[in-house]
């Protein structure tokens, strides 16, 4: 039995239905990244679990016990917010200690616990500072320390890295998994950044259209997305998508695109003559200066270096646009672009979707 179970939870605010029959099971000690566009109900879900908002329907169980009806203080749930929400008139120490107060804990124990968590988060030297004297990064660590100090069974983190600078975000992205493991908390981590979701989640829950569309390991979300919308949201540059209609042929079904014929897997035979989407990720398009087997001619119209990788903007003879990426060192071969080159698709990596439903046409399991 899973440790945290969200069982068919619904919630509406007036006319706005935010969650409908949302379901999620989280194992003990697991970190689930909840990813979705703004307004998808991510924060509302956390508030339901914390007990700040009540569900209209459905059950929430922690360690097998329903928490419906329990107040926030009775739930053993810690929460940190994207705007830090520190008490401005208290030094960092008191902010972190606040969840321990009023529980009859002796001062020496409080001191020791705060010191311990502050050291792990590398803010022990600023414990006597007021929030306004802390840098953004230190504020964020203080907020995180406050949510961790009691060692809650369930930790809810609401986009905690949103308001910190890039350097710190990377640092925290690297440190958080180790930190969370030390506290053995079960974590729900809300983010709008797909990279953060993949980096931090043992599994990623894609929340969209009022419920979870897919809950899976990062690699499965990326390589095996259930819908075209999920495929579009994971990956930067986004996956290339082309409307097409498979037609029968002597050597099996295929689609005419880019001035060549791309074979359609046998399992898609039922899709002949029906509108499909061919999806190919930029890193699965190989670009070469010379012709080779399986390669078709394209015009390289722009070279746009990204971080670490370089994006190549291609136009095929049938005026389709293709974005490809290559490593930074490969990218330097192409100059400023505006030259003929050759592209090849990694056929095994093509993702096919039903255009009408947006559902992925997956291989049979």
């Amino acid at each position: 039995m899973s440790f945290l179970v969200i069982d068919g939870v619904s919630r509406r605010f007036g006319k706005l239905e935010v969650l409908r029959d949302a379901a999620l099971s989280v194992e003990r000690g697991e970190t689930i990244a909840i990813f979705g566009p703004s307004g998808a109900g991510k924060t509302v879900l956390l508030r339901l679990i914390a007990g700040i908002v009540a569900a209209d329907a459905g059950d929430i169980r922690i360690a097998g016990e329903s928490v419906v009806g329990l107040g926030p203080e009775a739930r053993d749930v810690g929460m940190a917010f994207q705007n830090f929400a520190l008490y401005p008139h208290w030094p960092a120490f008191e902010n972190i200690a606040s969840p321990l107060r009023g529980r009859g804990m002796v001062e020496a124990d409080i001191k020791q616990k705060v010191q311990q968590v502050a050291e792990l988060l590398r803010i022990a030297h600023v414990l006597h500072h007021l929030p306004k004297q802390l840098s953004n990064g230190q504020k964020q660590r203080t907020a995180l320390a406050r949510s961790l100090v009691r060692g809650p069974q369930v930790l809810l983190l609401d986009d905690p890295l949103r308001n910190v600078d890039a350097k710190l975000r990377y640092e925290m992205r690297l440190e958080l998994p180790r930190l969370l493991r030390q506290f053995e908390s079960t974590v729900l981590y809300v983010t709008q950044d797909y990279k953060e979701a993949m980096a931090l989640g043992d599994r990623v829950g894609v929340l969209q259209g009022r419920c979870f569309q897919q809950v899976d390991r990062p690699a499965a979300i990326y390589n095996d997305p259930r819908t075209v919308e999920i495929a579009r949201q994971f990956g930067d540059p986004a996956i290339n998508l082309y409307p097409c209609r498979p037609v029968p042929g002597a050597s099996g079904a295929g689609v005419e695109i880019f001035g060549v014929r791309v074979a359609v897997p046998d399992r898609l035979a039922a899709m002949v003559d029906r509108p499909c989407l061919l999806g190919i990720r930029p890193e699965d398009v190989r670009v070469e200066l010379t012709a080779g087997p399986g390669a078709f001619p394209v015009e390289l119209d722009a070279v746009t270096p990204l971080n670490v990788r370089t994006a190549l903007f291609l136009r095929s003879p049938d005026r389709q646009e293709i974005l490809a990426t290559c490593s930074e060192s490969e990218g330097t071969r192409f100059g400023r672009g505006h030259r003929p080159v050759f592209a090849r698709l990694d056929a095994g990596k093509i993702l096919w979707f039903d255009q009408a439903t947006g559902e992925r046409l997956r291989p049979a399991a």
Partner: protein
Amino acid sequence: MATLTLERVSKIYRQRRRQAVHAVIDVSMAIQDGEIVGLLGSSGCGKTSTLRMIAGFEEISQGVIRLGSRVLNQLRPAERNVAMAFEGYALYPPLTLRDNIGFSLLRDKGTKAKAETKVRQIAELLEIADILDRYPPTISGGQQQRTSLARALVRSADLFLLDEPMSQLEPQLRAILRARIKDYLIEHRMTTVFVTHDQTEALALADRIAVMEAGVLQQLATPHELRDRPANLFVASFIGEPPMNIVAVRVERGPDGLRLTAEKPGGGDAFAIDLAGAGLELLAAIGDRQRLQLGIRPHLIEVGGAGPLKASVVSNQWLGDQTHLGIDIDGCLLVAVADGAIAAPLDSEVRVALPLRSLHLFDADSGAALSHGLEPALRGAA
């Protein structure tokens, strides 16, 4: 089209009874005909003031700005033949998008049909062709921004100025629109200066990037050069995602040559790097300094293989087209990036190399670059 030159340009905002603010200090740059240059920096670095001086919306406090052979200083904005896309879009609410984009073409020479074709082309490029008959208040911020961009790009001008042109674009559209815009600018040989705080945008669009901080131009260079030869610690840690790893090191001189000992953030020694293989030029660049800052870009750290350093894996994060690895070398936390997936579970030990050719050394006090790889930073600087 024309070249744009800034000669020792400064912007000083003088306020009564308050200290003058030096927003732009002594900036010089020459932008070639048809070149795309990005002004990059965090808020308050002087990039927008620089752009507004070029456009004519701010007085030039000191220095000269030329466009071709014309001195712009005393010309009104309308006399400069410059097209600009504003950060706040500045669309006319009572006009349709079509008229917003097209009205500036009315005063240019050419037929009405030609103008309509141009509007349609640019609208298709920016994916607003299907909403051309709508009015600005009825469309999203991203669409308004694309309309404002279309209005600037459709004109024929000597110079194109774009202020944060893509900050509001929908994430899934960003990469493809950047590519199309770059293609369009190159195709039409448009001399372009754009302002951005987003380095990904700057790297993607620009031929050269002017990195600014505290009103001072830190470096004007190609994306490639900014990464391989950053002029100082600021540029080095600003460019790159994840940013360059920076570690404080102590220089030790032994009979076999130099050794750099990395210091842990909280004190104490971490790993050491032997510079025995370093040439005289590099030694000269280091001089008699006792302390340095050492930098290495995440994807140039070699993980696995038979590297000389032992590291423990703190995190292993596969992001689809790249992997970010957090590694702890004797108490120093570094980030390494690889193109594919890496089989290294958490807390496992991996061997790591920080190759000499990938190390950057900076002066510990001024932050100025001393060397890139085995070469002194000042090579060819004169």
